[in-house]
């Protein structure tokens, strides 16, 4: 036990530097990872699918996909994994860290861009760098998927209106025969500027060991 522990701690130290989590947080997340994977070294989509609490979430599929998306590993690769290891799991989680008091303005900007990039990747399912109208429609449909028939009808209208808004704010003057291909990352950043993503998109990573508490598996 002793030798392997120092080995994993050594590995964890690397991860601390890479992802910015603290050692306790990484240890806790590792325990959770083991729990999800059934003590294996990798997680597959089925493992995540079987979390009961996720069942009621309308965007469940997108969330699970995000874990297996290579673009979220910050290594400029495209495509998706079949299974992910602990390091990839942590990388995805690190998108949800909050800023601290010591984060400078530039770091906040970088953080915001990273988080927006994560969201963008979730919407842009074919990895072509733009969110087309169809993709956006799918997003809204999924959001409203738990609301029955009303949801589906309105989803199309809402997506169209949203797209129109993006186009209007970013490219104000278009000729009637010009075509707006899709939302690029810059446009995406522009429209969500007001939401201050770095203060909103985070969860609380506790330093307490939570896996001993009751949670789904």
């Amino acid at each position, binding site marked *: 036990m002793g030798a392997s522990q120092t080995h994993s701690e050594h590995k964890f130290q690397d991860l601390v530097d890479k992802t910015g989590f603290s050692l306790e947080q990484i240890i806790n*997340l590792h325990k*959770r990872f083991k*729990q999800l994977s059934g003590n294996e070294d990798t997680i597959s989509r089925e493992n995540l699918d079987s*979390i009961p609490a*996720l069942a*009621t*979430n*309308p*965007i469940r599929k997108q*969330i699970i996909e995000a874990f297996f998306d290579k673009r979220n590993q910050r290594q400029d690769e495209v495509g998706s994994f079949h299974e992910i290891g602990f390091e990839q799991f942590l990388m995805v*989680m690190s998108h*949800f860290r*909050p*800023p*601290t*008091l010591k984060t400078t303005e530039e770091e906040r900007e970088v953080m915001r861009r990273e988080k927006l990039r994560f*969201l963008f990747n979730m919407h842009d399912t074919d990895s072509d760098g733009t969110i087309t*109208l169809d993709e956006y429609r799918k*997003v*809204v449909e999924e*959001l*409203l998927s738990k*609301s*029955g028939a*009303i*949801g589906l*009808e*309105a989803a*199309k*209208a*809402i997506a*169209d*209106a949203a*797209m*129109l*808004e993006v*186009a*209007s*704010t970013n*490219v*104000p*003057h*278009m*000729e*009637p*025969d010009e*075509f707006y291909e899709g939302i690029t990352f810059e446009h995406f950043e522009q*429209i*969500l500027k007001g*939401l201050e993503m770095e*203060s909103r*998109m*985070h*969860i*609380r990573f506790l330093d307490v060991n*939570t*896996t001993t*508490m009751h*949670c*789904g598996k």
Partner: protein
Amino acid sequence: MAELLGSSSVRSGRASFCLRVVGFVLLLVFAAAASASRDISNGTSKEPNPAREEDPHHRSNTTHHKKAFPVLSFNYEHVRTPFEISLWILLALLMKLGFHIIPRLSHVVPESCLLIFVGLLVGGIIKAIGEKPPILDSTLFFLYLLPPIILDAGYFLPIRPFTENLGTILVFAVVGTLWNAFFIGGMMYAVCQIEGTGLGGVDLLSCLLFGAIISAVDPVAVLAMFEEIHINELLHILVFGESLLNDAVTVVLYHLFEEFAHIGTVTVADAFLGVVCFFVVSLGGILVGAIYGILGAFTSRFTSHTRVIEPLFVFLYSYMAYLSAEVFHLSGIMSLIACGVMMRPYVEANISHKSYTTIKYFLKMWSSVSETLIFIFLGVSTVAGPHSWNWTFVVLTVILCFVSRMLGVVGLTYIINKFRIVKLTKKEQFIVAYGGLRGAIAFSLGFLLTNDKMKDMFLTAIITVIFFTVFVQGMTIKPLVDLLAVKKKKESKRSINEEIHTQFLDHLLTGIEDVCGHYGHHHWKDKLNRFNKAYVKKWLIAGERSTEPQLISFYNKLEMKQAIMLVESGSAAKLPSTLSSVSMQNIQPRAQPRGRIIPRISKGREEEIRKLLRANLQKTRQRLRSYSRHDLMIDPFEDNMSEVRFRKQRVEMERRMSHYLTVPANRQEAPPVRKVYLADDGDSRAVSGRRATQPNLSSPDAVSLLDESSQRANQRSPDPPRRGPELQESQEEQDQLKLSRCLSDPGPNKDGDEDKNKGFIP
């Protein structure tokens, strides 16, 4: 030279206008003073003021010879009370009006300061006449003046930031107020024990009582001040939320110390009972408010046939919540807030658009009047009240208040930041500390003190602290905010993209929490939402609205708003160059058949929008008809030249009218009431009069444009079957039949129309 003279005459014109206003106002002041003095002198027999006329009929004894039939008689007694009340309110409102005419003044000095100053003036005048000025009566204050302000604040409370920061707010409200009370009380007592200050008679409990009164941050003052500085949402909700929630603490402490001040000793059991009392008071207040709120929501489910009384339900249930809580000495303010918060989402889904507007306007109006009256009366009471000025006591109070507030905020933030994810920076801490104003609640509580030997001194000190915080801190906070470059409130309205992504984020974060395996903030919020959707909404919302997801209601509201703005802006014809020319064609993939390129909305909504357009097209028509006759005198040569331009504009206008989704120009409605704001989501006290006043009358361009389109309608030129032009055509036909109508607005739609659609237009 001529210009100079011209401009100076304009300026002197303005100056003379101002003078006239001031003169009129002074006249009114004298009238108020006279009536007040009449009031007092009727009670106590003082020698009659020679300026007043005595009516012989009033004092006439029965004489034996026949009187002539009185053609004109004078009976002031009959209407005295309502007359005086109305006079005071009128005076207050005229003052408010006056300040906004003088622009430079209202930029430098916050309104609350000016109102107190006016109160001082009025009080001074009344005293100079030789009469006793009226004092801010505590019953009047707590039962009539305070509830509208709190209801307004509670009903439009922005829920999301409030719940996100609830922990912080509670810590500031409870622990902060307790710290303030005990620190100030304790230090005062310590100083009073020092020989030579002449304050030896003040015992510990009195000091603590005084500390309890002076420690609470006042919601009225905070609201009045923060409204003018447009600070960012987080700071606003922190200070404001604290001022609301500390009421429970204040109530408990006040009653506790007042009881014990009579008895003289405090035991541990009493302290324990005090803690229990605190929980009872706060939770009980919230419970009472929640019950009334649910009752109100439930009632509003059935009001579809009697729309006119809907606003009354909201007001009365809330007021009853407040009064019921006061009966049991629970926290009335928390009850009122709980009632408003509880009621609002369900009531808004049930009531009509007009009721919604009525509620909003009435709440703003009442709270505005209340606030004005409170500040003026504060000024008058200052002049009136018996004062006992003790340099040490007063100066010490002011300093201690300031110091304890600073220490309290800094200390608490240090602890809170360990638990907060988004930490509070030093600048924000400073603003929170500096924004802790004291106000009329402290004064009224002090006034209620029965133990009179210290009362005068306490009152003087309280008034001084109030003046200090309102004047000094109120005036300097705006430049400080600018100096420290604190983030201001973001002005933009919610867009559909932001709403989509807010919802998306909620679900995403809940999902990530689930993957991580711990039940955090988002998990519980999600559970609450699902419970709400599954059970509560079914009971409290009428009809199909109960199953409408939030995103859809938001989208519908947004569309309505844009439709209203688009049409009520008089003419979409005036197209500024900044307006986007993007339309649906630019987004739809080319391959799609040009079937129905206009996004659909549900039938009910469509009907409402159609009615709106109809009503407003009518209005525009009526207005413009008068101009069109005028226009016939335009130079025909000019007409020809602009033909081409107008045709182009007309095409664009129709395209706009055909779908309701364009981003409207920066024109917005500018209602005359200062605090009203047409946006969504409880941005209640947002922009104060900075909205560009939008010109109501259309320019001649628009005139000829619509004339053009009416001509077009006559010709029935073949256009592609788009919804907008069709709508316009049929309406124009109808309108031409009504040519002989008068030129004013057609008047509001009868309420019978509203019944058909259960929707509402915000």
